[in-house]
């Protein structure tokens, strides 16, 4: 069980794990209202990646990871999806470099 504290690193690792074994990896989302805590877990029954948060600022990261998995899992061609997600990251890098 590997705990992450940075959403960017978690996103990269989760994407890598999914594309290495797409049929076996699953993404789990747990929410407890009484504790106000969200836990995300990505595993392929051998490697397990986890991240937890209780801050509303991280909601956009949670949505981004959710969207990644819904799109990748329902998609027929995984290779095109992999390229698309890498294009998004390159765009973001360019935008950041300008600023």
């Amino acid at each position: 069980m590997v705990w992450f504290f940075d959403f960017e690193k978690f996103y990269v690792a989760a994407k890598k794990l999914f594309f290495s074994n797409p049929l076996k990896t699953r993404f789990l989302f747990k929410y407890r209202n009484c504790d106000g805590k969200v836990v995300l877990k990505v595993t392929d029954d051998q490697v397990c990646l986890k991240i937890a948060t209780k801050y509303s600022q991280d909601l956009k990261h949670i949505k981004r990871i959710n969207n990644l998995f819904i799109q990748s899992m329902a998609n027929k061609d995984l290779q095109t999806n992999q390229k698309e997600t890498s294009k998004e990251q390159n765009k973001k890098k360019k935008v950041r470099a300008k600023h």
Partner: protein
Amino acid sequence: MLLTNDQFLLYLKKLFESNQKTGSVFVTLKRTNGQPPHKTNSTKKKKQTTNYRCLCRATDGKKKISTYIEHRNIVRFQIQYNTILQTNLKLVKKIVKKKKTKKSKFPRKSNIQKK
């Protein structure tokens, strides 16, 4: 219980609402082939038609609901799912403490009165 996308999202809302005071809500996403994970004699004989779908399951420890997300329903499901998360996840705001600026020992030129 296997449901359609719209029914699943309705029940998911109810799950969140009923587990506000105690309990937790689990949502799992997994890619499926439509075939069992282990090879059996029946799968070897039949021609394997790959129909990839996303299996979405939700539970609160007691009730279980599930649905299949297909390629054509991705965007619609995503939008509705994100709105449900937005309304039901009540998270705390992170308080960023401002660093206190230290007062300098040496007074500024403007403060010094000319004798």
